[in-house]
């Protein structure tokens, strides 16, 4: 494009005016209500942009309905297909596994129990590499210790201090809380005072270290106290070429001998959680139970006391966020580039002193529209999807209302950050195609590479820390628990950054792109 050569005086005047305007713009701030209204009017009166935004919302909701509606699960009870049982729920509202062998008695009011774990052993059935024999050994989170539990009901509140297979002494309560204890300890003690339970550990039974004090809300006066043993399945994970992973779980069992039990027996015995789902071999080969001789008690058990993760994650219903994001990217980019294509940008910049304000107003409009669209779409998709999944017999991991709100707002924030990034890329390149492709290349490509089992786990984690795709962490509803062995990889929906940090990365990129766009807009001719 050729421009008439300006008279030097005119150029000087022009730059002086420009300077005055910039100072003026600074005084009045980057956000100007009139400019904002002008940009909003442009947005809402162009049919394509409104249609694109509506299409993004519909896409997100439609994909949730499609995926949830097409998903049916039933459990087999022998040869009969039956509805899957409801997931046991812990005091925190999470789905839990609560299965262990328990030598217990009543504890009324305050009191303590002290034991020494004299020995701990176990078996693991058919582990890799050959999967051909039963070997002696303990999985890392096999647990043997003492526990105070409200009742024998599955999911009842508890606090426990335990020796683990390979992780030393830990204190845990209410399925999700875990505190490591001192190294080398074998003596364990629990002390109840009201609804406060304190766990202690010691290497010699003389010098004790308090691990933690937890409060079990509403603990009745009479509770169960005693020794327990449990042992979770041995896991190995292989990749699925279609995405995600295939987890193999193998039966394990642990035994522990407790001595110096003070105060001593007698003990009632129960298998909390029952032995539902166990094969006959697993039940009788070396039966779970309790044996007492002299002052020592040997408990054998299998199962786990932990949060449960092997059910449908609620954020499956938000799969449409990524495709919806692509549509919003196109809308946000063309919101800028269409002005360049039509030459309208010159009129816009003429009408608005301070170019930064135009860009700021456009960013606010694009970001706000994406946020509002995301909020509506994610809220409907999550609610509808969860309802349809449950109706299809799927076990959906429950999350608190607060988590649901966090995920929905997070999805909306992710869409807003990406829309602003796309808009800034549009202002930078001024070409719709380049900006759309660039936005997809920095947001959707890394996310797909990381979550669709294409890259190795480690590379996938790096991508989700360093690229604008980090914000997808906001969609993760179920946290990773260090005390539960699972495949915590992006391919299985576990992000390396916490939700707020991931969103911060995405917004950081949006701010950076916007800053570059601002510099370009101020320096270059329109």
């Amino acid at each position, binding site marked *: 494009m050729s421009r008439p050569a300006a008279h030097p005086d005119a150029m000087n005047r022009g730059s002086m005016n420009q300077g005055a305007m910039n100072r003026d713009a600074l005084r009045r701030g980057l956000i100007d209500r009139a400019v904002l209204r002008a940009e909003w009017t442009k947005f809402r009166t162009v049919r394509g942009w409104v249609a694109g935004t509506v299409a993004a919302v519909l896409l997100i909701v439609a994909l949730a309905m*499609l*995926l949830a509606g*097409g*998903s049916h699960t039933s459990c087999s009870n022998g040869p009969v297909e039956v509805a899957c049982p409801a997931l046991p729920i812990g005091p925190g509202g999470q789905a839990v596994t609560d299965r262990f062998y328990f030598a217990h008695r009543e504890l009324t009011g305050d009191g303590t129990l002290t034991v020494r774990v004299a020995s701990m052993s176990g078996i693991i059935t058919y582990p890799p590499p050959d999967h051909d024999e039963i070997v002696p050994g303990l999985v890392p989170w096999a647990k043997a210790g003492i526990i105070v539990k409200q009742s024998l009901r599955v999911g009842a509140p508890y606090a426990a201090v335990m020796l683990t297979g390979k992780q030393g002494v830990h204190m845990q309560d209410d399925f999700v809380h875990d505190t490591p204890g001192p190294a080398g300890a074998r003596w364990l003690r629990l002390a109840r005072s009201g609804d406060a339970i304190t766990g202690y550990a010691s290497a010699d039974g003389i010098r004790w270290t308090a691990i933690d004090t937890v409060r079990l809300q509403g603990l009745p006066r009479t509770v169960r106290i005693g020794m327990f043993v449990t042992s979770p399945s041995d896991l190995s994970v292989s990749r699925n070429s279609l995405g995600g992973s295939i987890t193999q779980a193998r039966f394990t069992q642990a035994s522990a001998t407790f001595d110096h039990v003070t105060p001593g027996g007698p003990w009632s015995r129960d298998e909390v959680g029952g032995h539902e789902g166990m094969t006959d071999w697993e039940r009788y080969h070396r039966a779970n139970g309790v044996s007492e001789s002299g002052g020592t008690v040997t408990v054998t058990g299998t199962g786990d006391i932990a949060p449960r993760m092997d059910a449908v994650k609620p954020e499956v219903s938000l799969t449409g966020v990524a495709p919806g994001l692509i549509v919003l990217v*196109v809308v946000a980019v063309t919101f800028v580039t269409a002005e360049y294509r039509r030459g309208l940008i010159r009129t816009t910049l003429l009408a608005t002193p301070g170019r930064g304000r135009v860009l700021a107003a456009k960013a606010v409009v694009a970001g706000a529209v994406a946020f509002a669209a995301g909020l509506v779409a994610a809220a409907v998709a999550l609610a509808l999807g969860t309802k349809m999944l449950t109706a299809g017999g799927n076990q959906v991991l429950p999350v608190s209302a607060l988590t649901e709100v966090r995920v929905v707002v997070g999805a909306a924030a992710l869409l807003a950050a990406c829309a602003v990034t796309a808009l800034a890329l549009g202002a930078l390149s001024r070409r*719709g195609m380049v900006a759309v*492709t660039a936005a*997809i290349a920095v947001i959707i*490509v890394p996310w797909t590479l990381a979550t*669709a089992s294409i890259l190795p786990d480690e590379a996938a984690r790096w991508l989700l820390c360093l690229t604008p795709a980090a914000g997808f962490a906001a969609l993760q509803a179920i946290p990773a628990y260090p005390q539960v062995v699972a495949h915590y990889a992006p391919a299985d929906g576990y992000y390396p950054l916490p939700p707020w940090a991931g969103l911060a990365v995405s917004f950081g990129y949006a701010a950076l792109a916007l800053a570059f766009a601002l510099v370009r807009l101020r320096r270059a001719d329109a």
Partner: protein
Amino acid sequence: MTGELRAGLRAELTKLRTTPAPAWLLAAIVALTVGAGAAATAVGGSPGTDTPRLALTGVQLGQAAAVMFGISVISGEYATGLIRTTFTAMPRRASVLAAKAGLVAGLGLAAGALAVLGSLLAATLAPPGGGAPALSLADGATLRAAIGSALYLTLMAVFGLGVGAAVQDAATAAGVALGVPYLLTIVMTVVNDQDLGRLLYRISPMSAGLTVQMTTDLSASPIGPWAGLGVLAAWAAAALAGGGLLVLVRDA
């Protein structure tokens, strides 16, 4: 007819040669593919790693440039109105599109071959750690992955041309041409139903097309390597046919 096609090819080549964007986009195909592949390889593998596939991971990023190249060849003319001059000079619109398709395929293949060679060279010079098996072009499967990846980039560029012809607006075309393959891949990874997942894998241009890069676990793949590339070819042909039809019946 052949004379007209030759003239059309020469005209299109002149347009591509004398504007800076196509050269940049072709360079971007090579740079993005090699760069992303080298980055993925640098993170390392494990003894079970499919090394050729890891080395060619960059195709995932390079395909964005390939699609852009295909779109730009037609949408640039729609944006500037040059398309009317083109159609005035060459009233047979099908010939114009055929010439464009031929050029996109030829140049895309050249860039794709360079990109693949560069990626393999990078992975040979800096092999992935972690006990990943070494790369050897003498291996039949590796050679197939290499040739297939170059063809994949070519077909993606042709797919972009077809979508660009159909949609006209470059930004929307980029959204459609990249969005549809990603949509299918994303849905595929989350569907609960194994059969539906395998079906989506087989019909998705990206998943099926990239099967050609796999050298291990091929038995677990829902589709064979060349058949997978055939799926992408079908998508490209369909896009081109659909776009061509719209170009014929629509006012320029």
